């Protein structure tokens, strides 16, 4: 991200913001509510355009992309939404095949939804088995637990065959043990598929345990960008202190 600015209403969310993430790197974004973590992730995924500056994905630029190029750029970034963003009354398999819509035309997409090929079905099953919910392939999404839905969202992002995986507060509403499980799963699959992983988190301990790089964000500014071992208690206190907000 190069000199990126973003304004929402009267609030300047980012001004002249710079961040570089290498391919295959795993980064945790931490910071208080309203720091701009979600906006940052959505800009990185091409979901919202920056007002100035540019976001580069390899050599491709989001700022100068035509709508068609933007679609194919988005298809290269897997995004795991906080609320999963799955179609509740479709089956797990149909939700997952939608992951490749960005690379398909309407007819291919309809075919994948209505009658996916055996190859596709087996690929979906293999991914679901990898996250431990293979048996749920033909269950309706709204009949699954929150944790299972999250795994479906992860599998949809993997099925997309992205270069990078972005996750917005993936453990915001799960208990500490499940939170470790989910973050462990994300870092594991990112490593296996050689994906860049950027995850926004509230839990500093999880960020320190699982990520080699932690970026602290507050009011649209980077407060620190360090390896977990180099993080100091004072930096964390400053990041979350209420009086400075």
């Amino acid at each position, binding site marked *: 991200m190069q000199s990126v600015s973003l304004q929402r209403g009267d609030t300047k969310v980012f001004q002249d913001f710079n961040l570089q993430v290498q391919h295959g790197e795993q980064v945790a974004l931490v910071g208080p509510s309203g720091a701009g973590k979600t906006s940052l992730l*959505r800009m990185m*995924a091409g*979901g*919202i*355009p920056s007002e100035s500056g540019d976001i580069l994905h390899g050599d491709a630029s989001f700022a100068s992309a*035509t*709508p*068609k190029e*933007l*679609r*194919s*750029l*988005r*298809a290269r*970034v*897997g*995004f795991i*939404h906080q*609320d*999963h*963003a*799955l*179609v*509740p*009354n*479709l089956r797990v398999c*149909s939700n997952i095949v*939608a*992951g490749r*819509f*960005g*690379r*398909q035309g*309407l007819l291919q*997409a*309809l075919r994948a*939804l209505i009658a996916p090929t055996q190859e596709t079905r087996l690929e979906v099953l293999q991914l679901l088995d990898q996250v431990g919910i293979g048996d749920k392939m033909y269950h309706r999404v709204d009949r699954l637990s929150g944790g299972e839905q999250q795994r479906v969202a992860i599998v*949809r*992002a993997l099925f*997309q065959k992205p270069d990078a995986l972005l996750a917005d507060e993936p453990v915001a509403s799960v208990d500490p043990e499940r939170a470790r499980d989910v973050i462990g799963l994300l870092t594991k699959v990112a490593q296996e598929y050689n994906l860049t992983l950027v995850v926004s988190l509230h839990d500093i301990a999880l960020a320190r345990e699982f990520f080699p790089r932690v970026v602290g964000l507050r009011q649209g500014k980077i407060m620190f960008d360090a390896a977990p071992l180099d993080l100091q208690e004072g930096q964390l206190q400053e990041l979350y202190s209420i009086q400075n907000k």
Partner: protein
Amino acid sequence: MTPAQRERELYRNRSRSRFIRASNWALGGLLAVTWAGETIDFRSIFSPQRMNNLQRFLREDLSPWPLRQNPESFSWGDWILSIWNQHGADGLLLTLCISLVSIALAGVFGWFVAPLGARNFMHQDPLHRTLQVETKNESVLLPWICQGVRLLQIFMRAIPEYVWAFLFLAMLGLGAWPAILALAIHNAGILGRLGAETIENLDSKSSRGLFQLGASRSQVVASSIFAQGLPRYILFLFYRWETCVREATVLGMIGILSLGYWIDDARVRQHYDEMLVLVLFGAILVLLGDLISHQVRKSIR
């Protein structure tokens, strides 16, 4: 201030809508004008002549003709069966077929046109999430297409089905098609609007998720919008089917050979007993439609 005083004070200071108060006064005033101006003579409904007519209708005209002629050999079952065989069965079957074909046509048209009439979707910024999925030309065209579709839907439903039926009768002549097309066009206008409203009120999370991964507008319609909106749309579809069953009956009175035609035929011949039985056949059909519709809607919910 005592609690009672405080409560009265709070009641006096409650928020009141000036519009509703003005409407109430206007309604009361209009009723008073209607009554005082004697535009409608409210007492004439109970005039002796009308009372006599009503009495004759209920005591004589409605009792079965064979019963009046030969009470000893009269059988209710045979009499009703003869009406059923004569016109009832054919009329009922045609009424049912007209309602089914017209609602199927209206349902398919309404559903596939519905996304084009959904304002939040036919927007340069679909679902207001700055997702930029279209080219510049599309961004100019989309709101116009949306307005055009909505206008077409208004036109289709603003013209009553009877008027459509008269038009098609003149163009196509007697048969089931004038009624089918009249009901299909009117209901497609209504269902298209209801479908668009359904889409506008859907939870946009999943659609946003699909846009985010690069899906196009038509892919989002096919996978997320249709999947989420269909159960609610089917509720509307069955509700309109009930109406179609009733309207298909009534349209018979303008010359289409549904049950309404035979009801009107009996009225013209002054066979009020036969007319009553045919009306009851129609009521049973509407009741069956209501029951099926109720069950389907219950299971979909």
